[in-house]
């Protein structure tokens, strides 16, 4: 019980460090940086209680917010995708999957898992950039920032997932 949580905590800390120390400084063409933190929520295994998922989402978001000076933005977006992740996972997991399915290319299939990542990430980015740009009158700028960050995050997360857990 405690070992998987500790493992996940270490994984979360690693992702947060990469986010804070490297990715927050990267601005492709001056626009939004890639966001890696959603991966912690995306990879929550099947059977995680919804309460636990929500606490992971909020906790990671809260820490990311403090380091990036975006109070409330990451925590709101990550809490939201943590809320829908379990239901979406059940919907998109292969029928014959095990009970403790870990979302990954090898266990869900390449195309399925890609869609799963792309969808959760899109919802996350829409919330994140809508909140960041609150009362922002340059709609075009938010849209570009969101698009650039979404593309960069998606590529990065797919790469990380391939390295972490290549398809059999």
């Amino acid at each position, binding site marked *: 019980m405690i070992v998987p949580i500790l493992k996940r905590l270490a994984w979360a800390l690693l992702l947060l460090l990469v986010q*804070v*120390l490297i990715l*927050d400084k990267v*601005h492709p063409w*001056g*626009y*939004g*940086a890639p966001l890696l933190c959603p991966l912690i929520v995306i990879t929550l295994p099947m059977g995680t*209680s*919804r*309460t636990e998922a*929500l*606490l992971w*989402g*909020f906790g990671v*978001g809260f820490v990311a*917010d*403090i*380091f*990036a*000076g*975006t*109070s*409330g*933005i990451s*925590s*709101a977006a990550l*809490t*939201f995708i943590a*809320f829908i992740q379990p239901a979406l996972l059940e919907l998109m997991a292969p029928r014959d999957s095990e009970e403790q399915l870990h979302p990954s290319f090898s266990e869900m299939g390449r195309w399925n898992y890609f869609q799963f990542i792309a969808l959760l990430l899109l919802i996350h980015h829409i919330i994140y950039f809508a*909140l*960041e*740009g*609150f009362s*922002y*009158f*340059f709609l075009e*700028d938010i849209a570009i*920032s969101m698009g650039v960050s979404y593309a960069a995050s998606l590529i990065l997360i797919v790469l990380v997932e391939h390295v972490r857990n290549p398809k059999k």
Partner: protein
Amino acid sequence: MHDFIERITAYVHWALFLILEVLSGFLLFQYNHYQGSVWFTQANIVAAMVHEWEAEALSYLRMPAENAALARRNIILQQNIDILRHELAQAKGDTTTIKREWTNSSMTLIPARIIDNSVRRRDNMLVINVGSDDGVAPEMGVVSGTGVVGIVSDVTSHHALVMSILNSHSSISCRLRGTEYFGYLKWKGGRPLRAYMDDVPRHAHIQKGDVVETSGFSNVFPAGIFLGKVAEIKNSSDGLAYELEILLSTDLANIRHVNVIDNHNKAELDSLLSQ
């Protein structure tokens, strides 16, 4: 009864979801950078420490470029002094007045290093490695070798949170060098080198490349500190004035070393203004 409890617990996550989202919303809307707690920001002890290690490691990499910028700025200033000295000599017939060392005793500069910085958000803040123990207080101006950087908004004992000029709430009193036309420099998001100066009257003679500097009206910055140059002259939205697009002189994405301006007369001036 058992059934009832089961039904309630099935909905616990809904309640938790709502609570956490409301909490996020509270952090987003209630908390702001201009007053209140500094603890939920990049300037809190742990975040500042991590950013400080990182800044330490990176500062060596950027030293050559920073030095070059400072050297260039020094040369420009020396040239300016030279020109002024000549003009003064011509005007007064002698140069003895300028030979006394000129010191502005009402102002001290506190050197600092930036340990966290952002330029991509709409409300950008930075964190510097000096705080109240070093004499830094809210509303002090922050400048670099190339011009204005921002205004201190919150301090802890060893760090300070600075509202960057790249912040939608930033508004810096400025003027066109050599004229009496003044206005406020504002940033509207988007590109980190473009800001705007509003309310310049239509009869003002302005050219692209004119220098924009601080006006000295605000007590935060002394007059004459470089802000940028006029890049584009546009009509304001109501058509009654010009809106100048300013190319900022300081590339905030690329600075490490700054100075905090401690204006000793500020308290006096503020109390005078509030009367």
